[in-house]
């Protein structure tokens, strides 16, 4: 009977890979999210490439790489041509995020997966919707209504509701149910009984302290470092969680008249803040209210300097400072460079505010216990000209061999380092020439040639059009570290790193979205109660945990599909429509119960000329039916009610004792039916006295019987 719904994950199930899922509703294929990770490895888009051309619409939920990173590539290379829907902030900040990604990569490597033009053209045709806007899809999607709803977590963040024939499919990942400084919490609770709920298990295993506690800890750690003359690096995303961090810092700095400089550094910092200032409609009520009353935009940021180039940071006098730089993964961007510069100094602090993407440098640092040394790949782009170019071509073959040899040597060395023997502890920055994860093979092979150039003291012209190739910062640089750091310092530094990394575990949860399991735990189950739940995105362990939890407490059908496994989650809900005839309705007496009105009807089915069913009054006497008591009795409320009626009441032994002898008990509140409220059983016991009948009348008065 119901609408056919199928879910097929393309990436991001049983692990923390980027999110990308196909949801088919009666044959109409939605691509929900189109994420990539900071490695930009085309191989994880394999599944997407197989279905890209059959997609009918794309829905984006958050403006970060994990949710929309693959969009430019998919549009350019994989033949994704469907209309795209997102909210205005997701569109704008997503665009800026991709700019930042591109510029960060382009700065250091021959990044050719997509260009700025590709980003522009991918985002150009995005249809922008506002929250709670019911958008009726045209043509093939006739009858399907999509609506973005507030999700919290990131500005413009969306919980998608896809409706067809009155049945809702809710896609809600990474939502945050808590109100924050700049965002309202999600209104996920307002959905009553969707047919299918697709949600994530990302934070299922984490618990979060309160916001106040978490913010305080965050500020304490930063201030401790600053007062000890250290610098603080916050690797952050381009335009997502960083907004909340900026507000926390801005407010604290304003309240306490602090003067430590704060820098927000990425390639699109100033436009990001400019746009964010114009997105007040999408932010929390508090921000909107303060603007209406004082006309002070919360994002004027008086204490924060926006920088778009790392070289600007170098002009700043060398005093304790905070730098919020992208990318959060430390894989690229200014945060990567600054990390390399600062990591060796024990006074400095790297503070992660969210769990790093899997397999990135940030995630490695966040391990528990934190690694004593990490490998960092430094790459730069410099032009190759004249003789050198010739030399490069000549030596190409020789170098190839040499390099292969060298690489294997270095690798051996590394493996020793990671085993952590004391004498190699000094390798704060190990240059791994063989790590070519983000770079093409060709690039790797050339690094040897490049080294010579660097030693020649070559200066980098930033606007050169000459052929370029990446450079691996070589061991001479590393030698500097080795020579300048004395071992004692180094040990302290490790502790400091340790501290930074320890913060990670806490802050990730703290500054990140509310955990799904929390929502499912704390809200009354009937609110989220639905026939079918699909779990995506989250480590295998977390997914399994949440699955078990849901099965036990929330609903009987929980699926956690594997990549490219299509699951059919068509709801087995039966439904059909009938017309209520005027004759029938004129005889119906409704009883009002909160938002609802309830009546019992006995009717006969008739068919109209057009073939629709209609309900007519019965021609023969109605068959008797069991009386239904409608109402939700809370013993505590009942107690109050009874005592207001002059009956002595008290709780005793799990029952409500009324008067001398009569007791009221409530059993079987949550029956086996997936934790749904089910049918309450209320037991009234007592001897044959007048009071019994009085209490019974009072009890009946709490119900509506139909």
């Amino acid at each position, binding site marked *: 009977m119901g609408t056919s719904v199928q879910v097929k994950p393309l990436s991001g199930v049983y692990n923390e890979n980027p999110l990308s899922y196909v949801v088919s509703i009666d044959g109409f294929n939605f691509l929900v999210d189109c994420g990539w990770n900071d490695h930009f490895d085309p191989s994880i888009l394999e599944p997407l490439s197989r279905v890209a051309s059959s997609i009918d619409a794309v829905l984006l939920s958050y403006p970060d790489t994990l949710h929309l990173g693959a969009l430019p590539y998919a549009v350019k290379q994989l033949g994704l041509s469907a209309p795209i829907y997102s909210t205005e902030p997701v569109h704008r900040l997503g665009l800026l995020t991709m700019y930042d990604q591109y510029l960060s990569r382009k700065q250091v490597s021959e990044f050719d997966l997509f260009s700025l033009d590709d980003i522009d053209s991918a985002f150009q045709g995005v249809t922008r919707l506002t929250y709670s806007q019911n958008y009726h899809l045209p043509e093939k999607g006739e009858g399907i209504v999509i609506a973005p709803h507030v999700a919290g977590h990131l500005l413009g963040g969306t919980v998608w509701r896809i409706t067809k024939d009155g049945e809702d499919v809710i896609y809600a990942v990474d939502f945050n149910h808590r109100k924050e400084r700049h965002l309202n919490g999600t209104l996920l609770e307002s959905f009553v009984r969707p047919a299918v709920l697709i949600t994530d298990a990302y934070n299922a295993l984490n618990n979060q302290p309160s916001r106040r506690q978490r913010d305080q800890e965050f500020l304490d750690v930063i201030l401790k470092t600053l007062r000890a003359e250290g610098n603080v690096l916050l690797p952050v995303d381009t335009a997502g969680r960083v907004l909340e961090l900026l507000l926390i810092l801005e407010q604290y700095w304003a309240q306490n008249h602090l003067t430590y400089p704060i820098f927000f550094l990425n390639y699109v910092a100033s436009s990001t803040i400019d746009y964010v200032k114009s997105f007040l409609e999408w932010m929390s009520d508090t921000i909107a209210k303060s603007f209406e009353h004082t006309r002070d935009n919360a994002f004027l940021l008086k204490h924060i300097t926006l920088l778009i180039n790392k070289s600007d940071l170098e002009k700043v006098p060398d005093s304790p400072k905070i730098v919020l730089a992208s990318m959060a993964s430390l894989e690229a961007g200014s945060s990567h460079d600054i990390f390399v510069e600062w990591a060796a100094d024990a006074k400095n602090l790297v503070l992660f505010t969210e769990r790093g993407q899997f397999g990135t440098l940030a995630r490695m640092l966040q391990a528990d216990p934190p690694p004593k040394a990490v490998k960092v790949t430094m790459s730069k782009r410099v032009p190759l000209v004249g003789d050198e170019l010739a030399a490069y071509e000549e030596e190409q073959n020789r170098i190839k061999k040499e390099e292969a040899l060298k690489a294997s040597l270095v690798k051996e060395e590394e493996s020793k380092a990671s085993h952590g023997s004391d004498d190699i502890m000094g390798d704060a920055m190990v240059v791994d020439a063989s790590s070519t994860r983000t770079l093409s093979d060709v690039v790797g092979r050339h690094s040897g040639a490049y080294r010579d150039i660097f030693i020649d003291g070559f200066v980098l012209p930033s606007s050169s059009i000459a052929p370029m190739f990446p450079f691996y910062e070589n061991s001479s640089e590393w030698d500097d570290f080795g020579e300048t750091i004395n071992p004692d310092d180094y040990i302290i530094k490790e502790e400091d790193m340790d501290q930074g990394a320890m913060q990670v575990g806490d802050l990730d949860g703290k500054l990140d979205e509310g955990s799904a399991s929390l929502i499912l735990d704390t809200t009354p189950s009937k609110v989220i109660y639905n026939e079918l739940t699909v779990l995506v995105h989250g480590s295998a362990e977390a997914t399994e945990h949440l699955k078990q939890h849901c099965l036990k407490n929330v609903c009987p059908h929980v699926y956690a599909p594997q990549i490219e496994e299509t699951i059919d989650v068509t709801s087995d809900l039966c439904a059909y429509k009938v017309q209520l005839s005027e004759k029938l309705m004129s005889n119906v007496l409704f009883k009002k119960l909160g938002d609802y009105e309830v009546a019992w009807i006995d009717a006969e089915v008739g068919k109209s000329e057009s073939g629709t069913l209609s309900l007519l009054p019965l021609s023969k006497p109605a068959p*008797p039916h069991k009386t239904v008591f409608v109402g939700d009795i809370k013993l505590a409320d009942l107690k109050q009610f009874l005592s207001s009626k002059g009956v002595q009441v008290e709780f005793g032994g799990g029952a409500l004792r009324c008067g001398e002898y009569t007791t009221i008990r409530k059993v079987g509140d949550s029956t086996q039916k997936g934790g749904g409220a089910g049918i309450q059983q209320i*037991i009234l016991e007592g*001897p*044959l006295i007048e009071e019994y009948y009085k209490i019974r009348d009072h009890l009946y008065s709490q119900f509506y019987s139909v």
Partner: protein
Amino acid sequence: MASTGQPAPSLKRPDPPATREGDKLIITPLGAGNEVGRSCVHMSYKGKTILFDCGIHPAYSGMAALPYFDEIDPSTIDVLLVTHFHLDHAASLPYFLEKTTFKGRVFMTHATKAIYKLLLSDYVKVSKVSVEDMLYDEQDILRSMDKIEVIDFHQTLEVNGIRFWCYTAGHVLGAAMFMVDIAGVRVLYTGDYSREEDRHLRAAELPQFSPDICIIESTYGVQLHQPRHIREKRFTDVIHSTLSQGGRVLIPAFALGRAQELLLILDEYWSNHPELHNIPIYYASPLAKRCMAVYQTYINAMNERIRNQFANSNPFDFKHISPLKSIENFDDVGPSVVMASPSGLQSGLSRQLFDKWCSDKKNACVIPGYVVEGTLAKSIINEPKEVTLMNGLTAPLNMQVHYISFSAHADYAQTSTFLKELMPPNIILVHGEANEMGRLKQKLISLFADGNTKIITPKNAQSVEMYYNSDKMAKIIGRLAEKVPEAGEAVSGLLVKKGFTYQIMAPDDLHVFSQLSTANVIQRISIPYSGAFGVIKHRLKQIFESVESSNDEESGVPTLCVHNCATVKQESDKHISVHWTADPISDMVADSTVALVLNISREMPRVFVESEGEVNEEEKERKAEKICRALLASLFGDVTAGENGRLVISVDGQMARLNRLTGDVESENEGLRERVRTAFRRIQSAVKPIPSCS
């Protein structure tokens, strides 16, 4: 010891409420009916009430400026929707929220709300009425801010079953057209709108759905605007030539809305004409300066052009325009351009400058927008020889007066295409001066000559009534819907109504599909009884048709199941207990069981065994038939026995044949058939009061 007074549901047949009140849709303009100003339109349908806009009339003051609020009961209004911040659309809101019994919810867009506060605070400050005439004060405005909720364009909200959302309306920043949907009937209220994109605003959108009723403004009636670029050229040309002859230009304009558009035009013109750089442009409005932050923030409510400019620099950072605080700070030494409010030249800075400049023919006054009847600005458009100054003296009007309308109201071309696209079956014209409105009405009637469109121009407080016969559709869901029934089959279940949606479901599904839950009340009452258990059974058998005896599974004590609803259990030698699940019939059975047991223990048996002992079925049947026939006769008079055991009832020559076994009634007369059927059903339930429990 009666059971609770719940009648058996199957017997409940309340008299049908014959009124069709709920299906009448009433629209009443409380203001802006055949006039411009104090927009306020009241609408009610199916017990839901909406008020659109809440303005004041700029030409009146005090209570006289309010819409006709005494025509309605403010406490019944569910939702109040404000389209934009102009005084004639929003300025009686603080009064309505704070000084009346209104307790519904108020919505406006973000930008409207932000400017509303600034604008009204300013209005309260500058309006020079005596204290007792003040409709509200600054505090009232602040309090009203807490009650106003915001809605974003296209966002769909639902309040009390009323669904509504808004579209961009052009006109001014944040202006919205509201679409309201009550039980499937859609009403579009345009407020002030413009279908023409200008420098900073988008054109009004064309709604995706056609409304059943369109309440539309008619400010410009059948007039046509010149194309925008021609108006802009005239505007800049007039200014340029006046200035080059050494004259001064006065532009009386309302502080917010069109003024921003004019400033954008002037700033751009100055940028392109370096020769003008030494001539100052003053903008005399501290209010507009305060509102600039709002304009700089809500760029997403503006058009692509501004948003693209925004990427480089803020277009509302004017380079050639300086603010002017008051006339004292104004150094009137040579050519200059001054934009000042109010737009009608009633008083204030624009009037002060007008008085100063009006007798010099080098000077010019450019009236850039719609001017309200009864203001000086309206009268000088006709270029009278003389004008009366503020101090009462008369002065010759020598300055040139130009009327170049930039007001973003739709003209006839826009209105007619808009309506042609929407094709609403009903058009209600508001917000237009009576003559203009009449002309527009005539023209629209000829436009929609095919006749299916009604065009109505109600006066203030004059109601328009329309009837909508909406089919009520219900969705049968859950267990009840497991198979689709054929015609003639019966459906029984709970009808649950929320807002205007109906669902029918089995009682067991109630908690699944709604937030309601059901309960069973199990009752257990213990009664002291020391007699033999068998006696109870014997006595019960004399009263009830079915008494089954068995032994309790757990304790093995003997039990009796009475009429399949109540269980009597011998708990010990000293007492028995009665268990049952509460519902009216079971309560009745249980209560009479209790009464019976009590009477046994008092050894005062009142129930005697009927002498005949076992009454045979036939006997019973005959008796029932006799009673039934007697009762029918007492109701209808002439009842005779027909063939096949039918009863023939004749009333006033009409015949009805009743089949006593099935309850079927055959009759030519619909009314009689229904009556006989109902009567028979009641008689049946009187003869056999306890339906067998299934």
